[in-house]
């Protein structure tokens, strides 16, 4: 066990009010670490992180999930006690110790980020809400392949006991463990096909017509169905494979049709034929995709399965956005989407708006197929579970 920090540090104003610098506790061979906001009263007094009541909660959750608390590293965003547990801008200097700590953990795979303040600290974001970041893993460019995994701060459970938050908190460790195990298994590479010329489009539409069951996802310009323009159509009917073709695309900053009229008509006619047949279509929140199709082309989808509705029915305490369900159910895919968002540097707000303006067509299609792919795989998992409930 190592301790990282400088007991004589005077890099920020916290040195005036602290009793102790609470150095990070590092287990060099560990694959897991937790990152808190900063020391509390007890920690400041004893000079050791996570020794107070919140730390106790944390350790209980680790035990419950079969993780020995002495096998992991304990990090804080700031190493000195921040008054009123509030972060200030100049504390960011303390990132230095976080980064030094990383260097001492060559095997580190996952860092659980406890609470929204630690999240803001590590990502540099100024706005975030726990309810929307919980359980959505992400990576940060400067820290390479380390997966950051947000969870509630155990102190939140002490202020206001809430059984749902408690379950989410404890459950977060289970998911983290699963992601860790999944990251070690080597799996087949994805086979994602981009359909970008008329010949390939013909083939793709014909192949699509032959499918009896596939997942479907649209990428669009808006979350409001009657204002949305379609950027890409995405399909998957086999694990880790999928196809996508664009519809509108960004050309010199303008939204333009990707295809000539002939191809566009072919796309619309074929999809109309497919969606009015007996084909089984699975989606994530397919009501949206169906509405977008209706507003754009006058026909919708008969949805045979919906992963969002199913996952919510199976456990209404968990988050139901696609990234969260994926992290829970297909841990090896956790974090894939965040690499994408990082690549275009989009924060949560931008994701809702003009993200598509910044992204290459290739990335957009990959992103869409990935959604279709995981939707297909989640369908298998969730449908099986629905069949098995007693």
């Amino acid at each position, binding site marked *: 066990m190592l301790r990282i920090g400088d007991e004589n540090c005077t890099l920020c104003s916290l040195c005036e009010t602290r009793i102790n610098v609470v150095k990070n506790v590092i287990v060099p061979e560990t694959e897991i670490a937790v990152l808190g906001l900063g020391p509390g009263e007890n920690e400041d007094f004893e000079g050791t992180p996570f020794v107070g009541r919140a730390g106790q909660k944390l350790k209980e959750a680790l035990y419950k999930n079969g993780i020995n608390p002495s096998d992991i590293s304990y990090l804080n965003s700031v190493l000195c006690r921040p008054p009123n547990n509030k972060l200030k801008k100049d504390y960011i200097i303390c990132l230095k110790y976080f980064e030094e700590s990383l260097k001492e953990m060559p095997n580190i795979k996952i860092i659980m980020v406890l609470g929204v303040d630690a999240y803001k600290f590590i990502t540099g974001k100024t706005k975030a809400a726990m309810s929307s970041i919980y359980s959505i893993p992400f990576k940060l460019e400067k820290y390479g392949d380390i997966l950051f995994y947000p969870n509630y701060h155990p102190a939140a459970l002490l202020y206001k006991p809430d059984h749902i938050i408690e*379950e989410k908190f404890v459950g977060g460790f289970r998911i983290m463990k699963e992601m860790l195990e999944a990251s070690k298994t080597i799996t087949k590479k994805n086979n994602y096909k981009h359909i970008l010329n008329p010949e390939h489009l013909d083939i793709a539409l014909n192949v699509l017509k032959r499918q009896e069951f596939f997942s479907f996802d649209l990428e669009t310009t808006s979350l409001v*169905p009657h204002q949305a323009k379609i950027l890409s159509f995405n399909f998957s009917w086999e694990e880790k494979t999928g196809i996508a073709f664009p519809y509108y695309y960004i050309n010199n900053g303008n939204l333009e049709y990707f295809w000539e009229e002939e191809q566009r008509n072919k796309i619309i006619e074929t999809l109309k034929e497919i969606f009015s047949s007996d084909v089984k279509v699975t989606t994530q929140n397919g*009501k949206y995709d*169906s509405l977008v199709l209706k507003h754009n082309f006058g026909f*919708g989808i008969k949805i045979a*399965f919906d992963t969002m*509705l199913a996952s*919510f029915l199976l456990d209404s305490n968990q988050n*139901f956005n696609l990234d969260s369900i994926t992290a829970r159910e297909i841990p090896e895919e956790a974090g894939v989407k965040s690499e994408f968002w990082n690549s275009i540097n989009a924060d949560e707000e931008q994701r809702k708006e003009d993200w598509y303006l910044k992204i290459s067509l290739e990335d957009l299609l990959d992103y869409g197929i990935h959604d279709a792919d995981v939707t297909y795989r989640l369908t298998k998992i969730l449908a099986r579970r629905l069949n098995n*409930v007693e």
Partner: protein
Amino acid sequence: MWNEKRLFYEIILPFSRVLEDIEYYGMIVDKEKLEELKEDFEKKSKRLEFEIFEHTGNINLNSSKQLAEALFGRLGIPDYIEDFEREKKEWIPFKDEFRTEKGSHSVDVVVLKKIKEIHQHPVAELILQYRSLQTLLSKFVYGLEKYIHNDGRIHSSFFQLTKGGRPESSKPNLLQIPSRDKLGRKIKEIFISDEGYTIIHMDYSAMELRFLAWLAKDPVMLPAFENGKDVHSITTSTVFGIPYEEVMAGKDGVHKTKRFCAKTTNFLIIFGGSYATLQEQLLKYGDLYINRKECSRFIEGFYDTYPGVAPFQKKVEYLVKTHGYMKNLFGRRRYFDSVKNDNLDNSVLSSIVRKASSHLIQGSSSGDYSALKAVELDKVLKSFGGRFFNILYDGFYVLVKDKDVNEFKTIMGDILSKPEDPVKIILPVDIKTGKKWSEV
């Protein structure tokens, strides 16, 4: 037998398509009427502002701080009322201060209503009116304008993933239009039916209470419903010691207020809450101030009236403790893992039991059963060339061609009141028709 699988494929998925239709077609907005309302509301708001300033002087009415200074400072309105609080078994006098948890003055609706009822200062009512006008203006007048699509309709978005299974709408949230006051009704005037179509509105009457009576097999409430008696008047009768017939005779007159208290208590038991919650609801919805001791007596009176309910809640507690989840009649589960903690706090336990019992009652009735009926109704509706207009909680609004209204009303009533597995009771429905949302 219902289970999650059947629930998913037979209710949740098809219901999602019903909601999709409502979103797709949207509701026509009468833009002229909206303009008219805007003018009217703005004028009223200005006048109210003027009247309030006569009391308070010129202040920023949106600043709670300035308002509090005016009310409790300049106007000298006391910033508390005398009430009672239960300590163990005793009721002791208690100073109910108008302050937030952080200690600053609060001037929210409940406080204003307390000022109005207890301190009887006329400015409170003016501020309340001003506030509700402002809310309506921002949410449903200015707010609505931005949601009118270029087809002249608003396409509100429905969210199906609520714990009880009752959909919620957003952009705009139509559930927020107050149904109890005149102004709310005015807002509803701007939503109109399509040309040649009539809106039919159908509402289950006292659906949740009927489910409670049935599931608890309550020896008083169940026969009362079966014999067409007024359950709210039964509660009134025992709580206030007035014969049932007398309550019924004065239900819109001398006993109206008492019956309102009883009715609010009846609903409190279903939706869950303490005597403090009851006090707030009586204030909010009925402009009635009843002290906490009395509110608590109403709740005790409820349990005395219906001896089957307390044992039923005990049973729910037992089930949720044993399984760690509660299942509703359709197999929908809600997990309460922490109920298994050995050192479970009493207040946490009672909150879990409240949620579990509401999951069973509300979730089975206005949640999944309503959705099942909506799916059934939608099929027949389509064969008539009609469609759903809106769904609010357990109320359905549908559009049918003018010529089909009478025939469809009968069919609709039959479909909706007919019990369907797993429900074994007949649920009476109220049906109204009109050309505007406000008329139904």
